[in-house]
């Protein structure tokens, strides 16, 4: 079971780093607390919806800023407003802050400024998506591993503690299945 503890430790450390870096804020923590046995993937589900939303809005804004005949800043403000709202609801702090900065440039109808902001926003979004997907993979992997261990131990009630060799095999299988076990520095 020590390996599972290690994995869970890594999960906790990784999750803390997201907070430290400002990628997510307290609202994200609040959402994690809403998960239970009946809704174990709630945060992952909301995050997926958010990613779709985000990509669509960023795309719309990029198109709007490209219009030669004139940029529709009202539309851009509308997109920013939506994105700010949903990023706030999920606890995506840096994305939310990027929206706030963006808003002032679109309010000033500054096309160049808006383009820079959009780039910044895209960057923050990519960062968030990568980090959250890693977090979810570790979370799912450690749960799978835990379940495997439980099943194995239940089947061998009088057996020795789980041998390391099998642990490493399981780890390889998780990675092969597309999961990852992050190495925390």
């Amino acid at each position, binding site marked *: 079971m020590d390996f599972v503890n290690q994995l869970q430790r890594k999960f906790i450390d990784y999750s803390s780093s997201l907070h430290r870096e400002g990628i997510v804020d307290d*609202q994200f923590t*609040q*959402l994690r*607390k*809403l998960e*239970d046995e*009946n*809704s174990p993937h*709630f945060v992952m*589900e*909301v995050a997926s*919806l*958010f990613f779709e*939303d985000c990509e669509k809005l960023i795309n719309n804004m990029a198109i709007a800023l490209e219009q030669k005949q004139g940029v529709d800043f009202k539309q851009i403000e509308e997109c920013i*407003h*939506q994105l*700010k*709202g*949903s990023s*706030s*609801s*999920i*606890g995506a702090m840096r994305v939310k802050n990027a929206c706030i900065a963006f808003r002032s440039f679109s309010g000033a109808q500054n096309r160049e400024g808006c383009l820079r902001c959009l780039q910044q926003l895209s960057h923050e979004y990519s960062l968030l998506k990568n980090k959250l997907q890693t977090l979810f993979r570790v979370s799912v992997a450690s749960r799978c591993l835990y379940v495997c261990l439980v099943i194995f131990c239940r089947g061998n009630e009088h057996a020795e503690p789980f041998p390391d060799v099998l642990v490493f095999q399981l780890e390889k299988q998780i990675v092969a299945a597309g999961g990852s076990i992050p190495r925390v520095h």
Partner: protein
Amino acid sequence: VVIYAAGSGDVSDLTAPSSIDLRSVSLLDSDHSLAQVSLFDSVVSEMARNGGVAWMRTTEKIGGYDLSTSDTEEVHVLAVDDSLVDRKVIERLLRISSCKVTAVDSGRRALQYLGLDEEIQKKETNGFDGLKVDLIITDYCMPGMTGYELLKKVKESSAFREIPVVIMSSENVIARIDRCLEEGAEDFIVKPVKLSDVKRIIDYTTTELREGEQREGARAKRRGINKRKQREGDDDLSSSPPSTLSSSTSSSPSSSIQSATAPSSPSTLDSPTRRLKMTSSE
């Protein structure tokens, strides 16, 4: 987790839907009322996944009880928000607070939903609740009809003006808050919405409903109508969970205050929200 159907007695009967009142599923480990509600949701969603949805829609009455009816113990909330992310979050917050939730994406749809509700209520001459809404939670900024406009429409209608309306907004603007409160909003939540916000609102709503029920009960007693006697003579498939659930004595659980013959569980039953309140105050 063990599921048993109270009232049917015969476990082999579980295959016959008409002999199960799903609202009386109970857990042997009954520490949390939350779990009871979640289990119900799980069973329902499992049935939906296995193609049970069509069945539920065409035969919504099971054992005489409309499954889509708001459980008289649960607060039924109509949540209105154009953002899918926010809808999902508010839905979860409300479910975890033991509420039944209907989430719609616009003020227009909210009014349609309520309008539909009115028609059903007119048809239900035996006093059975239709899809009665106990509380409306709405976003302020929405395309088309804003939350403020929805609030006004609800307060202008004689049928629905009693329903408390809570406004949510990402902008903490005093003028906006004042305007909403003046128009009759119950409360104003600044987004992002947290569980503590929702619990506060639900506690308040539950208290209001229970006080309304007590007033109604007192009135009924004065009229000489003993509602409980009437209910005990009713259908065997009552909606009360078995007494293994720990409950302190309480007044009647929150339920409809509109119809005098609304079926409601006997007084030994604690509403889930009440249990939640008591747990959180322990």
